[in-house]
């Protein structure tokens, strides 16, 4: 008996496979890209290969993330908010608040008894999300994964006043032409983003333990900046990108077990690994 969680985010696609006891068998992370509608089958195939499993071995599959409707073989769709909350609480049983900063969303979640109880998300625009860092990394000519380490070398804090991704870019260009040091600019950017996320989290109310997840949690500069802005300890999972897919797999397992206990037959989708067809047909 095996379970799968598929998290198709705006930037990255993640798959987690679990066994009956909830042990991690394999996971895959890959860029979502523009073809995400057609990619779910491919990442699933890779994860199965890693775990030496066949698709028919999987008892129940939950899809989450923006692309959750584009996984034709998923049995159930659950939002990434519920999945992140569940995943975080499995990794950190004492977690009461989770902040996930992904490619196009920043979400703050409150967790009680391992479940999502309340949440806030950023407005529709991408300010205050991973995209903000991606865009400015390009402007600054630095690799995304190096931003955090470089920012820790800052000797002073630069105030970046504008949090709009586009305007902040202009501000960064102005700072560069003024001769400001890269590390100082980076520290300023991280602080700007962190203060925005902190404001979002305060709207929800923060209760310890606090866990930071999502691609942005891989940036040590951001983790430090969020810590400073919120003034509390932050826990980061080893694989901060995977909590959504992990939560989805856990929820798949729980959904299945609940049905088994109740003696109910749980409807599942065809286990063929095929490309998704059209969005709305899958949805209705």
């Amino acid at each position: 008996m095996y379970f799968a969680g598929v998290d198709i985010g705006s930037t990255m696609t993640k798959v987690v496979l679990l066994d009956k006891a909830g042990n991690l068998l394999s996971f895959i992370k890959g860029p979502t890209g523009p073809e995400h509608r057609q990619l779910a089958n491919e990442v699933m195939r890779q994860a199965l290969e890693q775990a030496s499993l066949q698709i028919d071995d999987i008892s129940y599959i939950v899809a989450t993330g923006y692309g959750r409707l584009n996984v034709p073989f998923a049995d159930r769709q659950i939002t990434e908010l519920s999945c992140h909350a569940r995943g975080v609480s499995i990794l950190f049983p004492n977690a009461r608040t989770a902040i996930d900063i992904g490619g196009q969303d920043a979400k703050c979640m409150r967790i009680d008894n391992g479940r999502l109880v309340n949440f806030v998300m950023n407005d529709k625009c991408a300010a205050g999300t991973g995209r903000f860092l991606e865009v400015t990394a390009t402007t600054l000519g630095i690799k995304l994964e190096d931003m955090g380490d470089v920012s820790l070398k800052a000797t002073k804090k630069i105030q970046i006043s504008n949090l709009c991704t586009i305007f902040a870019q202009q501000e960064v260009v102005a700072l560069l032409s003024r001769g400001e040091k890269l590390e100082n600019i980076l520290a300023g950017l991280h602080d700007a983003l962190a203060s925005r996320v902190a404001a979002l989290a305060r709207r929800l109310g923060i209760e310890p333990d606090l866990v930071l997840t999502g691609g942005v949690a891989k940036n040590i500069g951001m983790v430090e900046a969020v810590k400073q802005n919120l003034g509390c300890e932050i826990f980061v999972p080893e694989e901060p990108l995977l909590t959504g897919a992990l939560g989805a797999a856990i929820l798949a397992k729980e959904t299945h077990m609940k049905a088994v206990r109740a003696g109910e037959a749980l409807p599942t989708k065809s286990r063929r690994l095929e490309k998704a067809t059209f969005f709305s047909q899958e949805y209705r």
Partner: protein
Amino acid sequence: MSDKNKGLGKAREIYLDSSRRPKDLRAAGKKIIGYPCVYVPLEMLTALDLVPYRTCGDIKEPVTEADRVLPHSFCPIMRNCLDCALKNKNNFLDGMVTIHSSDPQEKTARIWESYTHYPYFHFIDMPITVRPEALEYFKGQLNDFRKTLEAFTAKKLSTDNLETAIKSHNQQRVLVRKLYELTKTSPPRISGTEIVQVVKALTSLPVAEGNDLLTETISEVKNRSDGPDKKSARLLIWSSTLDDTDIMQVFEAKANVVMNESCGGVRAYRGEVKLTADPLEGLADYYLNEITCARTFRQATLGETRKDYARDLQSRFGYLGGTIKEWKINGVIMLLVRYCDPFAFEMPSLKDYLSSLGIPSTYIEYDYTTGALAPLRTRVEAFVETISQ
């Protein structure tokens, strides 16, 4: 599929092509008067045999013309309404009545008036508070409205005709509430999406035709076997405007929307106009005091908001408390239209009020387009997941 010529089927047809009936009526010699907001006293138009037609924006229409004359960052609904007017989509109108229900509407009115050329145009300066002085002032405004209407139609607005009109519109209010009685069951007998279509039809038809449509619809819904499915939550949506079925379906994919507390739903129909010796008195009272939109300032006790917060909340939102109980609502979504300040500022208090009732709520924002609905959908679904565990 129901009959296109009556009840729900007819409402759907009108929803999809709301100007068809007004255009036919105009060809038959009637005069059609547009209005963008439910605060315009339609009784006064009906009494003079004018046909009121609510000029909503077209949510699927990209705004282009309005952006030539106005900044982008303000009420997308008024921008959209004006845009449609500037694109001559309302050229079957004989006139237009706008009202100071919000600042964007007041500001847009001038542009509307000078950039379009309807034979009749009137702006009602509606006060913002429910104080007695405000009521007097509003009555005066309605008197001015009467004068310009009389000049335009070359007819007297008689007390008898006005009373008859008030009775017809009151009947419409009663019927809409009867229709909403049918969402009390679980599952509801009529969906929020269908009600959006019915209300849109009502605001595109003469009152008597609207009442016939409602009567047909109510009997159809009572006897139907193809009603909505039971979903995992019963929601109330609180918004300035929710008048589009695509947006409504974002909610109804996962929940039953049993109350649409916006001007695309129940808002204009919650009470009835009192018949007073001077009918304008009853009209002024109804439109100022009885319609519960965030645009109006209400305070339980003068200057005592902090001391009497619970009472203040009760006086502002008490009507929602009753609805939540009667309709067994287990979640409220505060749907903000971007840049709608009156509703945005009302939100913290409403949230406090709902918390005091133990009702979960969340807020989501949209910009009156149907473009990027995926983020909206995620927020709605996550909220439904939290309340239906």
